[in-house]
């Protein structure tokens, strides 16, 4: 087994409900345990509002836990965010550099990858135009092309699997699957069980802010499905 990169013990995160005096807090995460080892591809499943995205932001180091402990080795954990820091009046090229820097790339790494970003985005001459002139599809293509260049030690993905028109969706999905298959450490949050089943080898099941079960993919899925069928889902 690979070394432990990230370890969460009894982690809880509380949010304030609204900006008012003496409002009460609610716990988006209550008690989560998680162990992530190098090379693992961990899928996180759970119903809506179970705290999956909050958990991802804790692993990324964006949110600090209000209780429990997070141990992170000397590794970079990056949430795959699209169009991070994009500025409308700047060219596609400048935005690629800016977004790449925000995503943790060094300047020289981005410069070295600009050609690949340009190529992958299929933007042609528009690459030098302000992105304010882009269609939303073009914007997403640029955003994805930058994000896929980022190579953190731990890649965190929250439902962004495929963007753009049908053709680019296929291409971006394939690029992402290729990235996940390269032996990187990945944490993937998704509603789509088949996606998790095909891309991950380990699964963490989260419910109401608590980790229910973490383990081998098939084992966790089996328990999850048993639970779904035994316990009727509460009506919203």
């Amino acid at each position, binding site marked *: 087994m690979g070394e432990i990169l990230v370890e969460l013990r009894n982690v809880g995160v509380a949010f304030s409900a609204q900006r008012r005096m003496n409002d009460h807090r609610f716990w988006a995460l209550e008690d989560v345990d998680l162990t992530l080892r190098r090379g693992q591809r961990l899928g996180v499943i759970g119903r809506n509002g179970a705290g999956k995205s909050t958990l991802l932001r804790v692993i990324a180091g*964006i949110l600090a836990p209000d209780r429990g402990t997070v141990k992170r080795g000397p590794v970079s954990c990056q949430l795959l965010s699209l169009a991070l820091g994009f*500025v409308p009046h*700047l060219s596609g090229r400048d935005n690629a550099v800016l977004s790449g820097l925000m995503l943790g790339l060094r300047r020289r790494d981005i410069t070295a990858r600009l050609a690949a970003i340009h190529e992958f985005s299929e933007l042609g001459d528009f690459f030098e135009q*302000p992105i304010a002139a882009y269609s939303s599809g073009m914007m997403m293509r640029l955003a994805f092309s930058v994000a896929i260049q980022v190579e953190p030690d731990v890649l965190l993905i929250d439902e962004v699997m495929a963007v753009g028109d049908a053709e680019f969706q296929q291409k971006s999905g394939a690029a992402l699957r290729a990235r996940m298959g390269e032996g990187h450490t990945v944490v993937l949050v998704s509603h789509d069980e088949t996606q998790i089943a095909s891309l991950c080898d380990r699964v963490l099941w989260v419910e109401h802010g608590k980790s229910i079960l973490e383990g081998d993919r098939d084992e966790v899925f089996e328990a999850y499905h048993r639970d779904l069928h035994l316990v009727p889902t509460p009506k919203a």
Partner: protein
Amino acid sequence: MRQHLIELVLFSTYAELRAERARSYLGLAWWVLDPAMQMAVWWLLIHVILRAGGPDYLPSLLIGVTLWQWMKSCMIHGGYAIWSNLNLVRQVALPPLVFPVVAVLSDTVKFFYIFAVLLVILWVSGYPPSWAYFGLLPLFVAILLLSAGVGFIIAAMVPLLPDLRFVIEQVLNVVMYLSGVVFMLSNIPSPLREVLALNPIAVIMDAARGILMHGLWPNWVGLTKASLIALVACALGAFVVARLAPRYPKLAA
């Protein structure tokens, strides 16, 4: 990590300036036209309509207003920077101090354009350059540190208390009138003058006028004191931002 942050800050500053230039038709020209128009209004009011203040009043006013504009924009833009970037703060693990630093740097770049206009106006109105101009260097450092420090402190609070935005500009207006921006300390009667001279901004304004109008070196004791206050403000601001940093990603925009 640190080098990466420096690269991020520098490129963000470039991006900010570049984007601002692109937002209007005249772009870069506004950085000069805007203060020039403001100076013209002061000239009209003081020199033509009121005929007040004596021959040295207008240049001293222009120096005061130019420097204050720099300080105020750093304090306000820096002060709003974390709040207006909360969407980024929620998505990426960056030290939030990055945002006010970028705001202060880009306002400082813009200030140098405006300062060039001021210098030209001073030279043609009979206030030539002198060796004392070298005194501008420590003076500018003091101004930068002071504005950044106040900007950081405001930046730390605004995300948690957005209502502050409605008060800050008014407070800064009061600060301006108490800091010898629109009047000269030397024209104030004695007990009040000593009190006002405790204000680091007033000391800075005085030193700037001495350098630019009379070729006088700054009062080093006063400037050192002002710089120390500025340093303390900077350190305090950076500390408060770092201290409150865990709370920002949880805030709704």
